């Protein structure tokens, strides 16, 4: 375990930046935290979590895949892929860090998504333990320990000191280049961890019961009448999808200018009316089916295909951001009550 005074964070960030790009949570002009490229003077946000999730660094909203160009009467393929530089993402919370392992299951299984893989390979993830969870946080119910996040390095901010623990080879390699980090006792974070874990138990959603969900529950849940009332006010917007650290769907589109084509992918939402629309029509004709897809994917289909792991990390973003305050917790509580 290492440490550095909070007042010296700028020195630490500058040293990391000297080697590679660094992203930290900083307040935007509207006062919300967002992962931002560090530059001298950029202050670490005091907010619990970023408005947009950390997935953006690995799975950006829009990404060029390939280009084509007409040249001398033939179609020429244009490489648009750029090998990313190494980067460090600092201040990732435990929930978002867990989301990477969920996205890995999707993008790193065959056929491997090489765009995502490239970014993952170039990134060093430095997590930051939580001390002041929000009422909307339910990471504990999803098996995430907010007091001991994973990542290449784990940090704790405690009494004006940043504690630093390297967990992986990548983390060790980064640590070696940062001489301003001084050794400290291995148990330096223990007291804080105990306090945070006690706090987590007090959160209103700490004991969320997930026993009605998971692999094999499709039949029991698919035709439940409650889907109608749960989805009746849903606007079919993309807010819950786009702020969610585990939502992973994208569409492939093209930008054409007459002589060339740029093919890109962009986030898509199963809440949108044209999602997976085919020539035969729309397989999910109303918001009820689209809404059901989003939540059953996270709570049943994903665990079914991924060793029982839920496709939600309990970050609470969809609770805080949905315009009509409908969310995964309401779905869990509504469908969870009367299960057989």
């Amino acid at each position, binding site marked *: 375990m290492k440490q550095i005074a909070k007042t010296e964070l700028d020195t630490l960030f500058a040293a990391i930046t000297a080697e590679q790009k660094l992203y930290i949570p900083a307040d935007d002009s509207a006062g919300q935290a967002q992962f931002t490229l560090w530059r001298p003077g950029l202050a670490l946000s005091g907010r619990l979590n970023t408005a947009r999730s950390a997935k953006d660094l690995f799975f950006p909203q829009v990404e060029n895949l390939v280009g084509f160009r007409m040249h001398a009467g033939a179609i020429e393929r244009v490489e648009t892929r750029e090998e990313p530089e190494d980067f460090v993402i600092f201040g990732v919370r435990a929930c978002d860090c867990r989301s990477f392992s969920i996205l890995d299951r999707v993008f790193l299984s065959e056929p491997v998504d090489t765009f995502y893989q490239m970014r993952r390979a170039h990134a060093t993830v430095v997590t930051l333990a939580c001390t002041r969870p929000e009422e909307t946080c339910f990471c504990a119910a999803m098996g995430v320990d907010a007091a001991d996040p994973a990542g290449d390095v784990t940090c704790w901010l405690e009494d004006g000191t940043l504690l630093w623990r390297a967990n992986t080879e990548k983390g060790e390699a980064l640590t070696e280049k940062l001489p301003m980090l001084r050794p400290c006792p291995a148990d330096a974070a223990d007291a804080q961890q105990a306090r945070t874990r006690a706090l987590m138990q007090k959160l209103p959603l700490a004991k969320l019961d997930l026993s009605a969900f998971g692999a094999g529950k499709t039949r029991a849940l698919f035709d439940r009448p409650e889907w109608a009332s749960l989805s009746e006010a849903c606007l079919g917007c993309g807010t819950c999808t786009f702020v969610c650290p585990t939502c992973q769907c994208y569409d492939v589109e093209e930008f054409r200018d007459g002589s060339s084509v740029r093919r890109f992918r962009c986030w898509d939402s199963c809440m949108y*009316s044209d999602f997976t629309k085919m020539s035969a029509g729309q397989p999910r004709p109303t918001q009820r089916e689209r809404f059901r897809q989003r939540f059953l994917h996270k709570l049943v289909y994903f665990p079914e295909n991924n060793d029982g792991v839920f496709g939600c990390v309990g970050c609470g973003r969809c609770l805080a951001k949905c315009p009509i305050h409908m969310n995964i917790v*309401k779905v869990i509580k509504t469908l969870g009550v009367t299960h057989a």
Partner: protein
Amino acid sequence: MQGVKEKAIELLRSKSVDRVVGWKAGEFFYDLTPAVFTSVPEVEQSFVWSVFCAANLSKYLIAESRRGGKVAAFLKPCDTYSFVQLVKEHRILRENVHVVGVQCAGMCDMETIRSHGLSAVTSVAEQDGALRVETLYGARTLDRKDALGEKCRTCKSKKLAVYDELLGEQGCDEDNGRFLEVARIEAMTPEERFAFWRGELSRCIRCNACRNVCPACSCETCVFDNPDSGLRNKAAADAFEENLFHIIRAFHVASRCTDCGECTRVCPQHIPLHLLNRKFIKDINGLYGPYQAGADFDTKPPLMDFTLHDPEPSQAAVRGGGV
């Protein structure tokens, strides 16, 4: 407060209506969801009227008024303008809706409360005009006005544009300086203004919440969703397209936008969309004479009408500092 819930029960019990549109209790005290209630027990169990009823119910009446039978809706002053505008556009079937107008003292907004640095809020209670906010990390008292959402901080009017029955008193137009911020942006140089909007709109994640919540955006298929329009853009092909989406949307709703404030309320990225709409409203007031969309059932929105006194289009260029 004002017997709103009691009224919902009375309307259903007396069978004067078949359904009631209102707000349903959530997990916490603030996360109410718009909902349709069909029975008295349902209302008793989960209908809520509180300082967190900011959601505008009018747009839901497009579908609800076409479902057969009679539906009652509780509308705040701002919601009634959206309602009237939608009736004028033949979207809501007026005869199927029983409008219960509800007077309103301004709605609180959790995002605003959180912006004061309060986190893990467990309850908010009104106490002599102030708000007692309890959190896991201690309590604090907020001035009520500091907890209001943007649309309520700058409420244009407490006068209900329509109602079949009224809970509370009819109110008056308000002067809460809703154009002050617009004037501040008008005073910028074109370069500063461009930079301001580029900055604000660069945060957009194109979730479409602003459009989908907007009562003036009630097209069956939005031009931006229609593959045959040539304009469909689920994601922007370049950084300016995002800006274009907002500019075009502002034009599409101009003179029909009632300034209900929903777009700004729902934006997860806290983009001040109301400033765009209010700029249009301010200009329309100046160019065509004061006009409030949704204030009455008869007048035509100025941009959907033609009179001989209409300003010449060249005025736009003059005012914009062009030729």
